[in-house]
């Protein structure tokens, strides 16, 4: 019933949405979240240069000294400026989740679209495989992977990405199935357009609003899980500044009655995660699923 079906010139609905309207309909909370996310991304890129003091070299004399002039958040367990480490730590704290989301989206989209397009045996095989991955909680898979490949961000991030694939693929498979039954797809098939071309040029672009919403929500999950893994000492390795690492290395301060450095890093994680959760949920509502 669409114009495209009549003119034989298929068009992707999503492409009509201008970039400026990306946040339309997400409300005040959505816009506020977007501002926080942009700010966090800015700090992740430039934080290293914004940090006013050295972020790695220890200075034991200043260990757990409270806020003083020029050091609004005081010093950490090794006497380093907490604010500087938070600014520099944004980079690893944001890059990890970005990698997780990118990898699981790439594979998840491919699996979802392939099973929706081919159905039958492909669909059955893919969902059986995803069911098995589903049996491994993300953090557990990450711990297993760091035990095998050695502690560090890459092993943890790849394992988490694998663990998230079933979540992406299940949501997108349903949407891709719906899209595949649209008349424009039949029209393109009749014109002899190849299945791969229809999937890449039409079905995936039409799922883009759902994909963006899903990616935003997953970024929040990945940030929490990666921070937890770094907290366990299996992710980003000290003395590299990272919010998860900062929570664990300054946990001693909590026992000693000086919780500020650990809690400041925890607050950074929570604020950014809430922003991604809120924006993701608003985007999901808007995408109509």
């Amino acid at each position, binding site marked *: 019933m669409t114009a495209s079906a009549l003119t034989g010139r298929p068009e992707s609905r999503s492409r009509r949405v201008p970039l400026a309207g990306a946040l339309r309909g997400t409300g005040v909370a959505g816009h506020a979240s977007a501002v926080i996310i942009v700010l966090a991304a800015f700090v992740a890129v430039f934080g290293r240069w914004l940090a006013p003091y050295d972020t790695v070299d220890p200075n034991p004399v200043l260990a757990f000294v409270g806020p003083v002039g020029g050091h609004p958040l005081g010093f950490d367990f090794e006497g380093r400026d907490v604010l500087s480490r938070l600014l520099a730590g944004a980079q690893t704290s944001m890059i990890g989740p970005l990698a997780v989301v990118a990898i699981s989206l790439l594979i998840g989209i491919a699996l979802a679209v392939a099973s929706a397009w081919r159905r039958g045996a492909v669909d059955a095989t893919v969902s059986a495989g995803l069911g098995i991955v589903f049996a*491994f*909680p993300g*953090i557990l898979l990450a*711990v297993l992977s760091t035990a*095998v490949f050695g502690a560090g961000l890459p092993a943890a991030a790849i394992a988490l990405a694998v663990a998230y694939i079933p979540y992406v693929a299940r949501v997108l498979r349903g949407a891709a199935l719906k899209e595949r039954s649209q008349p424009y797809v039949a029209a393109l098939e009749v014109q002899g357009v190849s299945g791969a071309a229809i999937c890449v040029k039409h079905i995936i672009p039409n799922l883009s609003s759902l994909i963006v919403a899903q990616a935003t929500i997953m970024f929040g999950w990945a940030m929490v899980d990666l921070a937890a893994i770094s*907290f366990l000492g*299996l992710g980003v390795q000290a003395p590299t500044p990272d919010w998860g690492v900062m*929570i664990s290395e300054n946990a001693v301060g909590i*026992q000693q*009655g000086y919780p500020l450095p650990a809690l400041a890093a925890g607050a950074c994680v929570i604020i950014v995660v809430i922003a991604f959760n809120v924006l993701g949920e608003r985007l999901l509502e808007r995408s109509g699923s």
Partner: protein
Amino acid sequence: MTRWRFLARRLAMLVASLLVASFVIFSAVQVAPGSALSALTGGRALPAASVAALSARYHLNDPFFEQYWYWLDNVLHGNLGTSIEWRENVTTLMRSLAGTTAGLVLYAAVIIVVLGVGLGVASGLRPGGWLDSSVLVATAVSAAVPSFIAAMVLIAVFAVQLGWFPPLGNGSGFGDTIWHLTLPAVALAVSSLAIVARVTRAAVREEAGREHVQTAVSRGIPYRHIVSRHILRNAAIPITTVAGITIASLIAVDAVVETAFSINGLGSLLVQAAEDKDLAVVQGISLVLVAAFVVINLVVDLLYAVLDPRVVLGTAAR
């Protein structure tokens, strides 16, 4: 009879996913960089006798699938191998710690179900009241608090500042253990609790607004009866789903909370073993945790079938 067929199919799926999961966990040794032997020793230099014992135990000179078969056979007989770090049988190591971990997860699950469902029902039945508003605000914030950050805040406030609870450790004896596990259980439960409360609230509100409930009210059926038979019975399905998913997810998060509170349990041993590259321990604990995760998911699935007979018949629109 469909009920038994349903149960049989679910059990078959359970066994299949456990088998594949065990294969994945076993393969970890093989995909590790370097030789399987160096993965098993974690790069340690061992005396020749120990190396020979390891090769014999893992049948390292046999084809891959035979190795897996021997390993699985051992696992099914309760033999998970020897810890290279602790020089002790993995099963023995785990047995002494499993109780603590099970207790902690159970404690958190009880908190989630009692408080999460309780608050959700109470606020859902009286939308807009003071309780409802405070539940909404409190759950919106706590849903986003990861367990290890919750742990830090709880220790800072309730253990160090107020001194109401011990900050670290397991405790000894039943009462003392409960005392020690309270803050960890709360840390483990807090975000799941918030999610369960929000879903429960939404489900109860939706069911309370349905026509059959209005009809029951107008016919003068006692309020308690309406709540239990007409509202909660129907709201139970989404509540079970979310409670089951969140409780199953505690199994992985448990490792983080145990580490944060220095509790000796399976989770903290798993993390320690991963750092030490003590693969036999990592494999053993992963296997048990994955099995627990899969079994909880099965229990949730079976609960659905009890709550909603359409699931068994395969006609439920899920």
